[in-house]
């Protein structure tokens, strides 16, 4: 579906994407995980065939965005990071009019709009103005709009940023249903839980480059231990205490508010810490996540 070789994007002197190789296969949910400014959105805009490639090779659905842009865009669904819904139009008209841009005839557009309202669970809002919708509803409408042309490939740029937890789960559920229906999804996110939930395969991006690639499980297995012991001490003590627990795990990360000790047996780490007479304010043993992978690969947390 997507094949990129040495893909680059520069804006003047600034290089947002510094040569990445990506392969997305039909039917999979593929993720770009990385902090803000990693080059995810620039990559997405090139894939969406609205931003010219600075150099490298990019093929979308077997076509070249430089010469086949309209044909590619006709088969894509795009859910941008920032809502671009028409606030002056009704919810229904947002879908109907968008469908017309794809050359879909009026009757089909109407039917499709009704179906999608149901899918997005906003049928009762059909006649409402978009500006009166909640953030979650607007997002669902944006996703519904991106599906109006029954796309082969759906691009979602930070789909749940700014949504409350409940709205996120509703949205995830809908993306799952799309995935089951065979739609290829490409998602950018800086939420590791979102990436773990939704993506079959992902790349971790940092500073315009790909730091690692694989399934969430593979990435965790390859770059982190099975468990992590989190130790919270008093303010400012973490740096000094790190060396006292260094030998208890494979690796120790010092964060401003806690120490992370990486080990396959987290509980044993906590017991050993207490035996050494150290008294953490709080401890937590958890499974490794993509956040740990990211920390390992870049030395920074995703929120930075």
């Amino acid at each position, binding site marked *: 579906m997507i094949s990129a070789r040495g893909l680059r994007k520069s804006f003047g002197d600034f290089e947002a994407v510094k040569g990445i190789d990506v392969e997305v296969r039909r039917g999979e949910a593929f993720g770009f995980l990385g902090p803000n400014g990693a080059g995810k959105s620039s990559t997405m805009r090139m894939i969406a065939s*609205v931003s010219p490639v600075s150099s490298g090779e990019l093929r979308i659905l077997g076509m070249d965005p430089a010469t086949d842009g309209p044909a590619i865009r006709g088969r894509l669904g795009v859910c941008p990071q920032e809502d671009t819904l028409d606030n002056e139009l009704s919810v229904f008209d947002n879908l109907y009019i968008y469908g017309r841009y794809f050359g879909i005839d009026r009757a089909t557009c109407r039917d499709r709009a009704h179906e999608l309202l149901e899918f997005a669970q906003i049928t009762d809002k059909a006649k409402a103005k978009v500006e009166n919708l909640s953030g979650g509803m607007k997002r669902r409408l944006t996703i519904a709009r991106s599906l109006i042309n029954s796309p082969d490939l759906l691009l979602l740029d930070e789909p749940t940023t700014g949504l409350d937890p409940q709205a996120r789960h509703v949205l995830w559920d809908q993306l799952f249903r799309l995935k089951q229906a065979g739609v290829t999804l490409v998602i950018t996110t800086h939420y590791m839980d979102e990436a773990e939930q939704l993506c079959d395969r992902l790349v971790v991006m940092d500073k315009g480059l790909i730091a690692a690639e694989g399934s969430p499980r593979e990435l965790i297995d390859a770059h982190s231990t099975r468990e992590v012991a989190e130790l919270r001490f008093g303010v400012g003590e973490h740096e000094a205490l790190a060396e006292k627990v260094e030998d208890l795990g494979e690796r120790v990360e010092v964060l401003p508010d806690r120490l992370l000790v990486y080990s396959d047996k987290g509980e044993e780490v906590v017991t050993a810490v207490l035996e050494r007479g150290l008294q953490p304010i709080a401890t937590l043993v958890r499974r490794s996540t993509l956040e740990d992978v990211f920390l390992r690969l870049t030395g920074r947390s995703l929120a930075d």
Partner: protein
Amino acid sequence: MAITAARPATRPTGSLSVREGITRQYDYWLTVYKRTWRGGVANSFVTPLFYVLAMGVLLGGFIDVDPDRLEGATSYLAFIVPGLVAAHAMTIAVSETTYPVMGAIKWHKTFFAQLATPLAVRDLVNAFLCFVVFRIASACAVFMLVLAPFGVFETWWGPILAWVSQVLVGSAFATLAFGYSARLRSEEGFGLLFRLGVLPLTLFSGAFFPIANLGPVLEWVARLTPLWHGVSLSRMLCLDTVDWSLAALNAGILVVLCLVGWRWAVTGLDKRLEV
């Protein structure tokens, strides 16, 4: 293929014909029209009517001059009407292509949403301008119809051609102002355009008085303004005083401005929306 940043020379696969690009946006512009036509009525018809009554009928009642000094008009009202409608076409054109264009780029992001579909920048510009031309054409048509009973037109066919010339001058301004707006980062530039562009043109391009009154130098400056070409055409046709070679020159310049303006609009928007 190492570098693909350059624009392709051939037409992209799946790109739409001019007609298809416009008709796909018909439903959008129809809903925009349904939403905004009421406001348009006041701006397009009522305001200019006040001008005609105040300047043409009431002020004009004090003006009694030889038709030779009014470019052949038998009354000041008959003199002022064709120019007023042409100036009005310009005002509608500029107001429809300033804030609405910036809004579609900056505030509502309409253009970005539309570009994620098979539509291209050229298609967006075309449909937008078609809508503006429709606005100009309908406003000028109603204006001219309302004025017909005042006995200001000399022939039946002249006003029809005059209406075409008004639409033409409006279109020229629409394309140029679109190009300007597409390049503008902040709306403060619009104040400049209205105060230093639209207002002086309205006042000094021969709509309210013969430009011969400006003196030889300023008269030539006035002749260089796009609005004067519209006023000149519109007036000659309404008053049946057509100098066909001058008319051809006026129309030719306006057509050229439309084409140059269109190109300026497309390149401006293309550059602006590229991210």
